């Protein structure tokens, strides 16, 4: 590890409704791999996007090689030698690898009119050779695996003579062999003095690859520790920390033991791997895990929104075939998407139309005539039952707050007589006050005998609401905890548990799973 290459101090950033970074700080040395960790929404990506010129900071100082620098756009970052490899890859599939590496700064010939294809091919080949990558620069990016595309992104970053390389979840989509290859290249870069910022959720990886680890929580800097000496337990406890929900978890009353929904051996490609679980009447079953763990995929599969490779679904003991959302609705399953505006609501329509949307057959009379009186009565009922704050049921849903929009979706599914409600991130984008109302509503619904699956990335929320918690990681269920035994640390451990750990050690990697 060399001298300080970069330091960010007092970085502040707000987005509408969110204070994403609150006096965040970060330091990077030459020839260092510096891991940046934290829960979803801790502000890691935001902080790094500020460094890469994608977001503008509201306040704070960035010192690069001792100089105070301003990074208004990605181009400036590139000129300074700061490159970021994004979580979602940014290659242009229709261009060749060489064209991708040099896009935006193609060498020209013929009076600056023509592209010099042979030059970029040769230079790209040189880059690949220096990374010991066996790739043909003339291959189209679309023909590469995700892992190879990532290598190409690294090559592109290096072609800017990058001194700072930011990698956001680089191993998320890689196999173990591919991760080894990535680590080889990271080591190689470190030898050359490049400073590497490594954002990852996979804690066991960090111990291997990084020199130092900085932990962030709720947009704030927590601490920077030496990777060699720190324990994974310690990192987890720093990540989780104290939470803003100081109130004691309200574990709801024990549900009945009547199984309403049972899913057996659900599989879909790499997204869902042998997922089985049961849901009881009146139960809130929490689905915890990090983003991309496959929770939404499971929900969509159960709801019939995506086709599955294999798996069986039983409702009240009867095997059912669900191949479309329509089938799911007929079997009394409702799905409340995390993206309400896209999948849950017709935001341009009014409250009553949205409430009636999933059950129009109820309101349709002879000859396809819609009974508007009945719709109005139903809508009025749910507006008061769910305490939806709206000037009238003719109000367009677009104009309601996030919390009230969520209630409209709930009203829609209750109108459709659903017994099983799947909530995907029910409080995302909803302010704190409205959150507790949604929580109360979920508890009431469970109390009335509805069965609820609640997917949430917010651990306090999961802990507070659930009777049981299923934790997923990379498409598999890595553990199931009861409300009494679950802790944030325990969930986090299961949520970051990669398959190799279990497979290699032959035994569970932590005591909680052994229970």
């Amino acid at each position, binding site marked *: 590890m060399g001298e300080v290459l970069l330091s960010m101090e007092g970085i502040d950033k707000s987005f509408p409704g969110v204070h994403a970074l609150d006096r965040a700080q970060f330091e990077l040395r030459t020839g260092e791999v510096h891991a940046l960790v934290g829960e979803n929404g801790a502000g890691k990506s935001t902080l790094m996007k500020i460094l890469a010129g994608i977001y503008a900071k509201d306040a704070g100082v960035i010192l690069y090689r001792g100089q105070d620098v301003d990074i208004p756009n990605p181009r400036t970052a590139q000129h300074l030698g700061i490159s970021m490899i994004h979580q979602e890859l940014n290659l242009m599939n*229709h261009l060749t690898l060489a064209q991708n590496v040099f896009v935006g700064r193609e060498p020209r010939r013929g009076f600056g009119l023509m592209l010099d294809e042979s030059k970029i091919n040769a230079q790209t080949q040189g880059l690949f050779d220096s990374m010991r990558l066996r790739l043909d620069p003339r291959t189209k990016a679309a023909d590469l695996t995700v892992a190879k595309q990532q290598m190409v992104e690294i090559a592109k970053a290096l072609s800017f003579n990058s001194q700072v390389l930011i990698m956001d979840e680089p191993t998320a989509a890689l196999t173990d062999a591919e991760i080894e290859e990535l680590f080889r290249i990271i080591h190689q870069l470190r030898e050359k003095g490049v400073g590497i910022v490594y954002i990852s959720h996979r804690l066991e990886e960090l111990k291997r690859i990084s020199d130092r680890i900085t932990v962030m929580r709720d947009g704030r800097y927590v601490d920077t520790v030496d990777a060699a000496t720190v324990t994974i337990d310690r990192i987890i406890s720093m990540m989780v920390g104290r939470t803003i929900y100081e109130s004691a978890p309200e574990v709801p009353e024990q549900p009945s033991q009547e199984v309403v929904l049972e899913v057996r051996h659900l599989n879909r490609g790499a997204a869902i791997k042998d997922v089985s679980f049961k849901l009881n009447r009146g139960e809130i079953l929490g689905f915890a895990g990090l983003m991309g763990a496959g929770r939404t995929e499971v929900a969509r599969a159960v709801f019939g929104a995506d086709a599955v490779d294999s798996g069986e679904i039983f409702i009240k003991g009867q095997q059912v075939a669900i191949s479309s959302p329509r089938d799911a609705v007929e079997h009394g399953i409702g799905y409340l998407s995390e993206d309400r505006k896209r999948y849950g609501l017709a935001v341009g329509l009014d409250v009553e139309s949205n409430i009636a949307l999933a059950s129009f057959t109820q309101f349709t009379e002879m000859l396809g005539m819609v009974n508007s009186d009945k719709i109005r009565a139903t809508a009025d009922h749910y507006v008061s039952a769910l305490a939806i704050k709206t000037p009238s049921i003719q109000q367009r849903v677009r104009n309601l707050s996030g919390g009230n929009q969520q209630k409209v979706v709930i009203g829609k599914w209750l109108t459709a007589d659903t017994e099983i409600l799947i909530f995907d991130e029910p409080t995302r984008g909803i302010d704190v006050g409205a959150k507790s109302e949604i929580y109360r509503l979920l508890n009431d619904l469970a109390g009335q005998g509805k069965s609820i699956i609640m997917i949430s990335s917010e651990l306090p929320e999961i802990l507070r609401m659930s009777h049981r918690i299923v934790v997923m990681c990379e498409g598999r269920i890595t553990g199931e905890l009861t409300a009494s035994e679950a802790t944030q640390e325990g969930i986090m451990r299961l949520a970051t548990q990669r398959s190799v750990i279990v497979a290699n050690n032959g035994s569970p990697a932590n005591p909680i799973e052994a229970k």
Partner: protein
Amino acid sequence: MMATAETTLKPKQSILQSSAAQKLLAFAALIVIFIVFSLLSPFFATPENIVGILLATAVNGVLALGVTFIIITAGIDLSVGTVMTLSAVMTGLAVTIAGLPVPVGIVVGILTGATIGLFNGIVISRMRIPPFIATLGTMMIARGLALVLATIETGTIKPIYFNDTPIFRQITMSSILAPLLDPIIPGFNFPNAVLILFIAALIAAFILAKTVLGRYAIAMGSNEEATRLSGVNVANWKTAVYALGGTFSGLAGVMIASRLNSAQPALGVGYELEAIAAVVIGGTSLSGGEGTILGTIIGAFIISTLTNGLRIMNVPQEWQFVVTGLIVILAVYLDILRRRRL
């Protein structure tokens, strides 16, 4: 190369899925259409009729060249037909009323197209209006302007004839290749219009494959955000692509005026759909990122051959529209099938 074996890790695409395959398919379709009509009608495969097909392809083909670039950026241009007409009228005014020399008139026509294209580009990339709406607006604007300008001379809407400048008609209708081709195929009057189409196609192919403009058109169509993050000024380059499209429309305007020996101000509506159809049939993806000039030229020939053949078979024009529409839907459906399996 060793490396190639390493890189093609993805499951190999089936033949039908590649863009090259669609081009091949389109070319095969062209041959089949040609053979079928030859068998059905003795008047189809005659030199005169083939010249007719070539002429019919020339204008639509040039329009389609410009549209190819725009569709590659995942955009669309509905204004090419009426911009063509406006350019024709401008050339007509320059040559007949202003009395400017024919070459100047040609430049005026082409520049008119380029200017409207530039306008399209600015509306789309700066005002962020979706291309479909922006060019729909421009389509109406150009149509209106063409009609307004055509009233300048007489006060009523009338075509502008180039009767005082016979050379203007020869630009497309005479055949400078005739002395070369006559010994090979006697009586085959290969019109200049087709020669212009082929030259324009070569230029377009060069721009697409060898210049920065072509590269960025593909890059933007493939992943606009990634292109922006790579430091490319996406707004400017997109504007340039629409200006290029307009330039081809301007050229098409000069060509159609020359071919008809007049600027017909009421013409132009419907040409945009034929041009888009040619591009799509030629394998350019409506979702952007891929497309070839050769494919577009083949697509343009398919449309004109089909139209011509149906006419020769005495199929009423109404039904020709129906067939063209069905072909477009089929071509887009093939594109979607290809995409879905990727």
